[in-house]
């Protein structure tokens, strides 16, 4: 909400001390778009990062029923035993992975918390974590807040934005603790092939590193298989598997995620979790149980629908002169803006003000994201088509002679 500047100016501005640690991380690179967007009408946003579906009703209904029954208290710190049981069953069914629900699984407030806990549990000051560039915006801040240092490995379109094991290995030092990866990837939609993932896993094994794998988009893959890092031979003992319910079951607002890892790591993460969070929201956990038990069909229906929109979006972008790498996962397309001669930030800003389409500049996700923008296709087909029409006009206007 806008504050009244007149009232504001009368108040003497108090100086607060902000910690070095908080100052060490920069605000999200797209903060200014939030404000700009809020003041505009008729914007089509491809800037979202969540499904456009409401949570499947059977899941919502299960939570409502639990509320009616008065299931409104804390749960066990690690999460409801039934949920951990279901999760254990799910990971077994999906990846042939055996996790002990009592000691190797932790239910968290979204995968975001799981990521934060993982970094806090394994990093000492100065420890290094290897991440890919571009990658999801939270990775580096989470590492930094835990006292560590993020070391970025460039990835590029020519290599399908997959992480190269050789490039990873070249950055391993005696301070390196872990490799933090997130495939299927936000913002690129890239999926790591099993072979390339296995190569990265080998590097981790060779140097005794942990792999923290954010697999929140695991179920959103199109015509390819998702490779779970923990399921690669010998990798379970070296992997912190991070997952959640937000994307596959359209449950972003419920805030339920999880970590699956060796018991010592889960024990350390649980310690931090119990003091900072107590437990994940109870109604969300009930919903997650329902999702794991009966949500498969709703999830796959949504994936089918995302795939249709993915095809329309990618084809459309290519046709209007924005070369686009074929995303095989998540729900993002990551087209190049190079034909316009604009930087990705200029592109996003001008596109928003001139054509009222919101996209996220690739530079928000790392230096290697420069020259690209992230377009989320989890929006109605009509909006995708209208957005493409507007973007065509825009690209034609700016196309370099």
């Amino acid at each position: 909400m806008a504050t009244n500047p007149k009232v504001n100016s009368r108040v003497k501005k108090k100086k607060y001390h902000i910690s070095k640690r908080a100052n060490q991380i920069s605000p999200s690179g797209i903060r200014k778009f939030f404000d700009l967007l809020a003041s505009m009408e008729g914007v089509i946003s491809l800037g979202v990062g969540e499904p456009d579906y409401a949570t499947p009703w059977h899941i919502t209904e299960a939570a409502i029923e639990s509320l009616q029954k008065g299931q409104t208290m804390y749960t066990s710190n690690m999460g409801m035993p039934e949920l951990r049981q279901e999760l254990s069953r799910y990971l077994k069914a999906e990846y042939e992975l055996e996790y002990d629900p009592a000691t190797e699984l932790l239910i968290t407030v979204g995968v975001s918390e799981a990521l934060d806990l993982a970094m806090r549990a394994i990093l000492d000051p100065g420890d290094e974590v290897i991440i890919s560039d571009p990658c999801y915006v939270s990775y580096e801040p989470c590492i930094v807040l835990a006292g560590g240092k993020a070391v970025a490995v460039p990835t590029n379109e020519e290599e399908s934005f997959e992480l190269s094991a050789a490039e990873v290995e070249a950055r391993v030092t005696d301070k390196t603790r872990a490799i933090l990866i997130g495939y299927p990837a936000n913002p690129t939609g890239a999926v790591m092939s099993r072979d390339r993932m296995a190569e990265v896993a080998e590097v981790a094994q060779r140097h005794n590193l942990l792999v923290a794998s954010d697999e929140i988009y695991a179920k959103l893959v199109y015509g390819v298989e998702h490779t779970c890092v923990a399921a690669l031979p010998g990798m379970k003992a070296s992997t912190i598997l991070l997952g959640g319910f937000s994307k596959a079951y359209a449950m972003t607002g419920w805030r339920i995620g999880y970590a699956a890892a060796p018991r010592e790591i889960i024990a350390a993460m649980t310690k931090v979790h119990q003091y900072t969070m107590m437990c994940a929201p109870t109604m969300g956990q009930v919903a997650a149980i329902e999702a794991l038990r009966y949500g498969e069909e709703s999830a796959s229906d949504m994936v089918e629908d995302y795939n249709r929109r993915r095809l329309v979006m990618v084809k459309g972008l290519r046709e209007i002169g924005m070369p686009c790498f074929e995303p095989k996962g998540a729900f993002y397309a990551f087209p190049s803006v190079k034909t316009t001669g604009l930087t990705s930030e200029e592109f996003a800003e001008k596109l928003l003000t001139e054509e009222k389409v919101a996209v996220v500049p690739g530079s928000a996700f790392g230096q290697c994201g420069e020259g690209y923008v992230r377009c989320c296709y989890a929006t109605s087909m009509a909006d995708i088509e209208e957005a493409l029409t507007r973007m065509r006009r825009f690209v034609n206007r700016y196309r370099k002679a």
Partner: protein
Amino acid sequence: MLKEILKILEHDARTTPKQLAAMTGVPQTEVTRLIKQAQEDRTILKYKTIVNWDKVEDEHVWALIEVKLTPEKDVGFDSMAERIYRFPQAHTVYLVSGSYDLFVLVVGKSNHEIADFVSQKLSHIEGVKETVTQFVLKRYKEDGEIVEGKEEVKRQPVML
């Protein structure tokens, strides 16, 4: 691929062959051919619109009628059903398991009209043993669509 096209069309019959081609990755000419074929062999029966008639001044009355039949020699359910479904008033006709045989959804302009249809036409058909008429008081959901009160949920326009 026909199944995929049908799924999309069932959801939105106005999806054009061009859009279908983009959504499925199938060439447009192939999409057109598949649709034409599906129309010809009556896989696609009809394209229609789901209307909320309460929004316009119009008198539409719906009634669900349970029909019990007495199977007669040489006359199966199918031909008895045909004598019923040939009436244009019969909107939907199903053979069902349970305490009655045919489920007939009738649409008329007034309660009177429906009552007339049942008493003058339906109950006179040979083999119709008993009918129970239930008038529809409110339509909550029609063909998978919530009729009223469906709210658009607002998402945050930009999230990372």
